[in-house]
């Protein structure tokens, strides 16, 4: 049905044409779910955009064949291409929150799309819309469709988006990261829906994603991409289950398993970061001065609430409760994993510990001494040095207007750890080595580095404060899976060498499994379950934990290398 051959996409720039996709080839049959996998910069979204004719200008298709059934997509003019969109090929975007026009009722958006492609009456279009929404699993569709998009939850919105994509019976749907913005429970429902549409309606899906687990769960065939080129393609179980290509193998090695803990990820030799070989001076400096004692962290009855948004004159708004009755103990020198979906309050917890948010109730203690919260924590409070944080987004966690050297030296003079400027510089360089970066990095700006390298710089900054507690808030969720493996290895090594107490926060159960000694499961601001990592993963007691574990996409057991 869809045949792509020799596809090359270029973007003109001031350095000449940049080739985003080169010699790409793939084919999708009716009813087939074809996964297009690759890490960021692989060009997988560009392939999708080229097929539906929506390349961001000034990008253009430089070469190749794009054939949909009997139609040569490259031969269409602007109007023919637009008439084909929706009718024969449609698209689903990543974020259901922004994919729908906020000013139009769902009904109007559906009816308008149907009438654009079919010569039927408005009433017929309307009743088709109702049927479709019901098929997507939206109850009471005839009245719900009179609502505006903001009246639906995220998962419901993605169903509406899928209904909109399918309402004109296209042969092919390009789904660009359709579940990345969703929680696992909703993700699994949406994936089921896609599977059903492929089976029942014989729609071909091109499923663009970075998530190997999702591919493993529903894709029939898979094409692996890297740096604009196709690496290999074939049936999913063949390509991923028994990887033969070096890159695929490397990628599969980096995928963290949910059902067991592996000591270290296998990463290729040349990219392996050895935190034991270099940076001796920094190592010695970190190990000196009372390093032998690791410290513990205790939370007791912590609650956080925010004032609600006032919408009525007469009622006081109900406060929004972000955290309630949070009590746990982080043992000195251990890694505590905090797991939760969006809205569970895990980031609020990090902010409370670091003093950005004031808890409305409860007490915190650090190494036995009380830890004041929010504004009560003085700027010079010792905990400011002892607790350091590694953030989620490496693109915003480093000040882009400061050189790496300035960023790294900040904790050194701020806490009066090293007073001599030259010495600070030397130590920073050595610390860069310790986290696996070259010394030249010190005079560069953050934008000159990749996401993974920036995250290493962020780790170096945290270490330069000589902390005893490291809070990592989703440190790898913005990274590709192979980079994630490297960073997780680094964090493990550092934790072991320096006896750090670590709070590792993530929505990704598989990642937490690899890192944590103990685990706390959060939901809607409350603790569902806590205990040793292996116990929680193998014999969960809370219903919620069981559900999470069951719905997280995993690689089939027989794929193990």
């Amino acid at each position, binding site marked *: 049905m869809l045949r792509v051959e020799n596809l090359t996409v270029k973007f003109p720039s001031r350095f000449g044409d940049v080739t985003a996709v080169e010699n790409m080839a793939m084919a999708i049959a009716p009813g087939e779910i074809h996964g297009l996998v690759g890490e960021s910069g692989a060009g997988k979204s560009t392939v999708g955009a080229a097929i539906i004719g*929506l390349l961001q200008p000034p990008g253009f298709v430089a070469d190749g064949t794009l054939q949909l059934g009997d139609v040569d997509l490259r031969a269409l003019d602007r109007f023919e291409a637009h008439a084909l*969109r929706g009718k024969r090929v449609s698209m689903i975007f990543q974020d259901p929150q*922004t*994919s729908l*026009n*906020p000013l*139009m009722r769902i009904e109007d958006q559906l009816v*308008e799309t149907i009438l654009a492609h079919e010569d039927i009456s408005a009433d017929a279009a309307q009743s088709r819309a109702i049927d479709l929404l019901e098929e997507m699993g939206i109850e009471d569709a005839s009245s719900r469709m009179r609502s505006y998009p903001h009246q*639906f939850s995220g998962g419901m919105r993605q169903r509406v988006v899928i209904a909109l994509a399918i309402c004109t019976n296209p042969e092919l749907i390009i789904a660009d990261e359709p579940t990345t913005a969703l929680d696992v429970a909703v993700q699994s429902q949406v994936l089921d829906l896609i599977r059903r549409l492929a089976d029942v309606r014989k729609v071909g899906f091109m499923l663009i994603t970075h998530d190997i687990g999702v591919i493993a769960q529903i894709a029939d065939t898979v094409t692996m991409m890297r740096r604009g080129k196709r690496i290999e393609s074939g049936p999913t179980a063949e390509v991923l289950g028994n990887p033969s290509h070096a890159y695929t193998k490397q990628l599969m090695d980096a995928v963290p398993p949910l059902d067991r803990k592996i000591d270290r990820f296998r990463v290729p030799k040349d990219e392996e970061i050895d935190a034991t070989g270099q940076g001796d001076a920094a190592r010695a400096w970190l190990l000196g001065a009372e390093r032998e004692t690791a410290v513990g962290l205790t939370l007791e009855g912590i609650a956080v609430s925010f004032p609600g948004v006032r*919408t009525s004159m007469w009622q006081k708004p109900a406060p929004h409760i972000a955290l309630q009755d949070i009590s746990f103990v982080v043992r000195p020198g251990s890694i505590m994993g905090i797991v939760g979906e969006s809205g569970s309050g895990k980031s609020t917890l990090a902010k409370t510990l670091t003093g950005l948010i004031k808890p409305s109730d409860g007490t915190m203690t650090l190494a036995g001494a009380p830890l004041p919260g929010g504004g009560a924590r003085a700027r010079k409070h010792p905990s400011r040095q002892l607790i350091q944080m590694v953030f989620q987004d490496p693109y915003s966690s480093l000040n882009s207007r400061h050189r790496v050297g300035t960023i790294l030296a900040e904790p050194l003079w701020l806490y009066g750890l090293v007073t001599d400027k030259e010495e600070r510089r030397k130590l920073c360089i050595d610390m860069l080595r310790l986290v696996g970066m070259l010394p030249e990095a010190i005079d560069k700006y953050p934008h000159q580095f990749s996401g993974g390298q920036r995250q290493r710089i962020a780790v170096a900054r945290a270490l330069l404060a000589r902390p005893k507690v490291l809070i990592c808030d989703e440190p790898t969720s913005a990274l590709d899976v192979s980079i994630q493996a490297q960073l997780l290895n680094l964090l493990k090594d550092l934790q072991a060498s320096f006896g750090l107490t670590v709070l590792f926060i993530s929505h990704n159960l598989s990642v937490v499994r690899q890192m944590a000694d103990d685990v706390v499961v959060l939901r809607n601001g409350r603790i569902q379950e806590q205990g040793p990592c292996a116990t929680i993963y193998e014999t969960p007691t809370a219903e919620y934990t069981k559900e999470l574990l069951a719905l997280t996409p995993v690689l089939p057991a027989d794929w193990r290398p």
Partner: protein
Amino acid sequence: MVYFIVKRLVQSAFVMLAVAFLAFSLFRFVGDPITQMTGVETSVADQERLREDLGLNDPYALQFARFTGDMLKGDFGFSYRTRQPVAEMIATRIPATLELGIVALLISLLVGIPAGVYTALRPRGIATQAILMVTLVGVSIPTFVIGIMLIFFFGVQLGWLPTFGRGGTVRLGGWETSFLTVDGWRALILPAFTLGVYQLTLTMRLVRAEMMEVMRSDYIRFATARGVPMNRLYFKHALANTMVPVITIIGLQFGGVIAFSIVTESVFQWPGMGLLFLESIRFVDIPVMGVYLVVIAFFFVLVNLIVDMLYVVIDPRLRIRDVS
């Protein structure tokens, strides 16, 4: 929603109160009202008695309360220069300024919005580049120069249109309008165009920027991907979403129209409030200055309140609360 509106009302009242305080301070502290009101021949004792009569020895808070109360009753005091009631002086001038401002605003919207939409949809077209260049020159020429140029060409050289005053007006109750005579319309063209040009360029650039932002939003890309007809895409989906932020700014622009009407009225000797204000500044006629201030702020606040209501009508997110 009710809360939203009430909140806006309270904020507006606060702004008005602050402006009233400004006017009061002007009146009370810039120069001595008594020396302004009386001549040199008035004895010190008489001056003191007048001061006492007018309550100028009372605590400032009481004086301000009385001042605000008088304003609410429509009693705006007397002009130092003409000894007439200020309320009357302003009231006879309001129609001229409002009619000028409304026509100018209409010109700016009726030309600015389509031009903005066009330049946003064809960002690389030659016509777009030309329009952008022309509007850039447009914002760079001072209003008074535009006025002078129009007078020079259409008034002096060609002799087509009158260059000063309102021409023929008709009295409708207390309202003197230019809209009902050909002569009045002819006199209105040049000043309204002068005043409208600057706002037009602003409107156009704003609509263009917002529209381009909307055009790259996910929901427009999604609508394109499912083949919604182009005209619907542009004018139903994109334009409606563009207007949400744009109407807010257009409300704020009304202030600009009123401000620049001072200049336009001066160039064209248009007998509106702006001209009166200029005269009152020249003669340090504090009461008139103060009242002008309050009246302008009132119009500004009123227009922005109306804009806020429009906002509620356009955007369902403000009307209907989340159900999910």
